């Protein structure tokens, strides 16, 4: 097992290298650079642009260098100094910007994931065991609605309801009075009061998908002979089902971790913008729009790293859960 983990970590190195190149190329693909998009914005708002000034900036930022040299500057900074470069737009180091947003992003991701599991597991089990019953149909119906409604509409609806009928402060993760305050119990409670809307909005589609997956998997497992063995042993039905087939049908839940991590950062961008959440998604979007290349590149690279880590974690968890999987 230890050997396997080391081997996987070593394999990650070339993968990461490839990903960094692809990330960098993606940023370079659209025509122009940060300065051209800045110039066009400035001319739109009627400001004058001094060509000499632009040329000097281009020199300073190294935007005139060949692509490979720019890539080398960027990647060597990350590897040798942990320096992710400098954001043109925010005039701050990229690392600061990212870490600032990472905490809230991670908290939101984990909370949503737990919500998805807590809801999807019992409903999925119920639906599989009482297939084609009234309850199953009701849950399936709700699940498909949750699946079909775009996240941002759900977000807007929930915000309206919370503001209009519950009189809550909505948007963001904190009420205005707590922002920039040190952590306290009241601030934590306030965070929870804000967290439920994004959690429901982000979790609904995932919940619906996992219910369907679990229902399908469990339906297959329920007909396996070992379930009859468990029943013939004298186990009550629910205990027999939870201990044996559910355990095996859980595998896709664990495998999901691999893609859930990056998904939660990039996938919920629209929701985050609508709800004004201080997470990584909106920042990434702005960086891409304004061709803030070091910020965008670092984000894409970070998402790649998260995917790799997520895959490794889910593979290892899968091995713990299912002894048939052995690593050599």
């Amino acid at each position, binding site marked *: 097992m230890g050997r396997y983990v080391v081997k996987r970590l070593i394999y990650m190195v070339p993968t990461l290298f490839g990903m960094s190149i692809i990330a960098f190329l993606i940023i370079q693909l659209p025509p122009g650079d940060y300065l051209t998009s800045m110039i066009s914005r400035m001319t739109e708002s009627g400001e004058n642009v001094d060509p000499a000034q632009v040329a000097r900036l281009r020199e300073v930022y190294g935007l005139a260098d060949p692509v490979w040299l720019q890539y080398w500057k960027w990647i060597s900074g990350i590897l040798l100094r942990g320096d992710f470069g400098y954001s043109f737009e925010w005039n701050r180091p990229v690392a600061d910007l990212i870490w600032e947003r990472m905490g809230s992003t991670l908290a939101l991701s984990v909370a949503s994931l737990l919500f998805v599991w807590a809801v999807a597991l019992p409903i999925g089990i119920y639906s599989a065991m009482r297939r084609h019953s009234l309850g199953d149909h009701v849950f399936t119906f709700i699940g498909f609605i949750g699946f079909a409604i775009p996240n941002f509409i759900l977000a807007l609806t929930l915000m309206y309801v919370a503001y209009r009928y519950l009189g809550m402060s909505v948007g963001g993760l904190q009420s205005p009075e707590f922002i920039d305050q040190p952590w306290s119990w009241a601030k934590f409670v306030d965070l929870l009061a804000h967290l439920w809307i994004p959690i429901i909005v982000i979790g609904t589609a995932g919940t619906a998908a996992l219910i369907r997956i679990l229902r399908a998997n469990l339906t297959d497992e329920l007909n396996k*002979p070992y379930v009859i*063995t468990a029943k*013939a042993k*004298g186990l*009550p039905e629910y205990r027999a089902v939870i201990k044996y087939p559910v355990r095996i049908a859980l595998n896709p839940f664990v495998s999901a971790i691999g893609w859930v991590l990056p998904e939660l950062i990039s996938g919920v961008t629209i929701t985050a913008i609508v709800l004004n959440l201080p997470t990584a998604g909106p920042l990434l979007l702005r960086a891409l729009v304004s061709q803030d290349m070091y910020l965008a590149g670092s984000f894409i690279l970070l998402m790649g790293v998260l995917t790799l880590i997520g895959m490794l974690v889910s593979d290892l968890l899968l091995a713990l*859960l*299912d002894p048939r999987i052995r690593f050599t």
Partner: protein
Amino acid sequence: MSVQSAVELKPVAAPDPQVVLAVENLSLDFRLRTEILHAVRDVSFTLKRGQTLCLVGESGSGKSVTARALLRIIDKNGAITGGRILLRGKHAEIDIAPLTERSRELLRIRGGRIGLVFQEPMSSLSPVHTIGSQIVEALRLHRRMDKAAARAETIELLRQVEIPNPEKMIDRYTFEFSGGQRQRAMIAMALAADPEILIADEPTTALDVTTQAEILDLIKRLQVERGMAMLLITHDMGVVAEVADEVAVMHFGRIVEQGPVDDIFHDARHPYTRRLLASTVKLEQNRRAAPAPTGEPVLSVRNLNKVFGGTPGWFGSATFAIKAVEDVSFDLHAGENLGIVGESGSGKTTLGRLILRTVEPTSGSILYRGGEGEPVEVTALGKRGLRAYHRDVRLVFQDPFASLNPRMTVKQIVGDPLYVSGASRGAALEKRVGELLEFVGLDPLSMERYPHAFSGGQRQRIGIARALALDPKVLIADEATAALDVSIRAQILDLLLDIQKRLPLSFIFISHDISVVRYFCDRVAVMHRGRVVEMGTAEEICTAPKAAYTQSLISAVPNPDPRHKRMLHRTRFRA
């Protein structure tokens, strides 16, 4: 629902104290999409202490459903529509039929008073829990025990079912057990709470003959030690003759005949029982008068080897190598049937694939003389040559359900080889497919139907028609009859023999079933751990085997005659 029939029953006179379970007029229905299936109709039997009742029947006769109904394990769409299941014994008499799924009485009976062992040793235990934890669970459900005591008891149980190193094996997972060991563990679990009745549903069907003999021995021994009543469900008349005290024959959900084992075998009344026995006994003889092989062999295999693994891994560590086939040589003559028998893992299937070169041999030669012109060295053939070779040497598969594409019509399936090889198209192809179907005893008009419309035996006929499409010289049949019922098996074998009379064909017949090989083959090669340990005419191998391994193999085959039980004095082979 059961009140009606219960009232009509005659009051039973003083019940036999030996009877522990009495099933009276049990009926079971299943709601299907378009109809109601009466899976079990009016079935009655009794189980007596220390005795074995064998429930015999072919697939779909309702025997497994009956057995599971005794524990009230019934699929969602099924229901007991009448009759009683009376469990007697130390306690007061209890009727299992009206109990509900969640009642405590039922949970106490399941595993506590009636144990169940069933067919699939591969999948009847959970793959993600250790063997020990699954047995401990059964113990703690029915006996008041703490964890340590239950663990000690589990080790003792594993020792009783003769699993070596029970202290270590208790913490192993099912995939670390062989098929026979899994079935032993399953038996240990069924016996954990010391039940009065053991239901064994095809407990040895998926096992090799020698393992089957050992498991049957074990069950018998435990039954005698504990004085259990046993209900053994099987389709194998040989097993019935070896272990049964009484026999009940099931056909289409009814028990058509029941009585002591000797009466059933030597004085069967019902025509169905007689037919079942006839098709079993028929397979006990060799139908072919083996002509001395003449002329040049069609296929000469010399020193064939196949090693799996053994190549260095990525990090330079050499992996474990398995010699699947080791130094195998034989000749196959024109019109000859060569049987290859062996237990699972003996390399017989690999050998078949090596001859077809779907698996590349590691070394050795295969010389084919069937085609026109010069003999061909198969191991040296290129892609084009191999395609021509595959036209002459074809394969019939084991699983008639998995080997036919469910989305293709029979015409497409049978015509596929013709179409691919470009032999015929259009109306000519249709005509040829019709001929082939007629040839294997199917209605040519059914060629537009899909495989699901056919029974297992009919599907195997379709598979044979497909193999015959290109006028092959050699057919390799890999366990071609293993998935079929006894009577169907005999029909398919007769069909193949009949085809052989009309076409110049040779067969390589790979099977684990000695009786099938004996019936069908001229010569037999016995494989054990990749090697051919003995080769001779079918009669020689079956009646006077020379090698020690063959002797143990042959003597483990159950004899369908309760007056001459063979397994009791079988020779055991240790290597």
